[in-house]
């Protein structure tokens, strides 16, 4: 390569970079779309107090002079039964819907992963008992178990979140246990044991990092499911209470008006779909990178 060639290459460095970025976007459209949506969701969750046209409408404010206004003008997405701006409530709802779902996944991981890791790393009868307990929880369809526990705890956003965690952690315990048990038999763990490494160190420093990929992928795929479940519980009256701007509750509030004033329910429902879609695409994009064989495994 001559000096001139090298100079022209450097001059086109940005073009090369742009071209490879373009190729990446073409090859992973789902990942890019999902990151854009998730970025916007994060931004709206954080900036809602500043970008919402009527921030007070996410709280106890009502405006009985402007009830059920159709979309347009002062209220780009219309107003609800008590005159609250739908756009403002949907923007504020990002935190109660998506934020709560993130917390639910984090709590489920915090319970399920250590139990699964312990179960898989120890093996034997402890493993057997723990996994039978997990089987019992997984014997219920997740939504139904969350619904029954939510009904037992009484309606509130916190209770709905707890109910979903109770229904969700066993999935991570089972997944983590399977990965840990598979890794436990591998040669590098055996040599670690011969070197005199303790059980805890082996489990946390050597098994966990190698088993984390599929768990991370599953957790991000599940976020969409948790968002839908949380919205479902709220829709059934087991989640957030008015005036909390939660998307599922907002759909429920628009339900009886749907034939005449559909925007009250359409807008928050579309927000739920968009958020669930983004996390599903993110999970699938991550799976391609971290756990390529996971696509056909449940």
């Amino acid at each position, binding site marked *: 390569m001559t000096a001139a060639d090298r100079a022209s290459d450097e001059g086109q460095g940005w073009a090369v970079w742009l071209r490879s970025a373009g190729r990446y976007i073409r090859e992973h459209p*789902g990942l890019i779309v999902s990151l854009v949506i998730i970025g916007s969701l994060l931004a709206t969750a954080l900036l809602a107090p500043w970008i919402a046209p009527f921030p007070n409408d996410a709280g106890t404010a009502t405006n009985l002079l402007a009830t059920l206004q159709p979309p347009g003008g002062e209220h780009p997405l219309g107003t609800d039964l008590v005159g609250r701006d739908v756009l403002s409530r949907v923007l504020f709802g990002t935190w109660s819907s998506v934020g709560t779902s993130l917390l639910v996944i984090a709590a489920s991981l915090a319970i399920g992963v250590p139990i699964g890791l312990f179960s898989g790393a120890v093996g034997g009868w402890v493993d057997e008992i723990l996994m*039978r*307990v997990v*089987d*019992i*929880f997984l*014997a*219920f*369809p*997740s*939504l*139904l*178990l969350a*619904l*029954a*526990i939510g*009904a*037992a*705890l*009484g309606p509130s956003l916190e209770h709905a979140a707890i109910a979903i965690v109770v229904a969700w952690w066993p999935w991570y315990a089972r997944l983590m246990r399977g990965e840990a048990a598979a890794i436990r038999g591998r040669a590098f763990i055996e040599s670690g044991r011969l070197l005199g490494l303790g059980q805890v160190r082996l489990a946390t420093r050597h098994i966990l990092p190698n088993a984390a990929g599929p768990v991370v992928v599953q957790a991000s795929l599940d976020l*969409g499911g948790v968002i*839908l479940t949380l*919205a*479902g519980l709220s*829709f*059934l*009256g*087991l989640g957030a209470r008015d005036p909390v701007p939660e998307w*599922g509750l907002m*759909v429920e509030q628009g*339900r009886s008006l*749907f*034939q005449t004033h*559909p925007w009250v*329910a*359409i807008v928050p*429902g579309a927000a*739920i*779909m*968009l958020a*669930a*879609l983004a996390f*599903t*695409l993110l999970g699938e994009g991550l799976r391609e990178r971290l756990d390529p064989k996971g*696509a*056909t*495994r*449940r």
Partner: protein
Amino acid sequence: MTMRRLLLRRLPQTLLVAIGVGLVAFGITRLLPGDAASTWAGPRASREELALVREQLGLDLPLPEQVVRYLAGLVQGDWGVSIHTRQPVLDDVLGRLVASMELVIVAMLIAVVGGLLLGMAGARWKGRWPDWLASAITAILVSAPIFWLGLLLQLTVATELDLLPVAGRYDREFRDAVGEGSTTGLIMVDALLSLNGPLLISSISHVILPALVVAAYPTGLIGRLARASLIETLGEEHIRMARAIGYAERTILLRFALRPSLGPVLAALALVFGYALGNTFLVENLFDWPGLGSYVADSISTLDAPSIAGATVVVALAYLAANLVVDLLRPMVDPRLR
């Protein structure tokens, strides 16, 4: 492994889990807010009446004895009495389960056919526009909140276009015919058996919308799973062989790739059934469908602990049975698992 050995291994496991399901259900009845005895006796009950009800319901016994009594009751068919219908819970729940199953079975048929078609379209034209379209459809189906989909379909298909009824299980004029007593509980099957054409048409037109809504998530899930599984199979040696021989791409897909790809789909079928059953709890109320979902919705508003627990148990048992059936079927479809 033969069917019998598989069954012998799985049955004790399933039984153990079933006992656990009963324990969880008992826990739910204890967690429910409010005192079961005062909910049962009503707000005007005197102290003596309350004590009597407490004794009748066994609430004065020590906890372990209550647990044993509850489990024994489940086995013997005594699931308690519903607070809001005042009927035995088992009768209530079984009757409602049949109505829900009618919805779920139709939804599962839609989901399997629709999902496989979407998956095949994606795998056949991978990376081209039919794949894009199929992927977009399945992504939306697994992301849309189904109660919202239900509202949208009711507004567009039922109200605006007037193509299908908005809600209910059959038209009002058939109330006497259905009320006379049904042989199977599945109205469509009843209508077929009694050769009642108008009732059959009425019940089918009523089931389509709610079944489509219940099928949404399962269709998307099966579609995405089938696509991934088919693409994996299409990369295998025997497919390259078939291509080299010169079979048409369609023949390859249907004759050589489809069956070996069904394993993961079938393995997920029990899970999908669970989703479909769970989804009925979100939409039955919307469509005025007299199944378990509406029953539980009524039970929640009346804090009816025995009914909620009963419905939870019956759904879990149906789900367990589905898991068992799928585990037994898998080696039949995929001989590599034998």
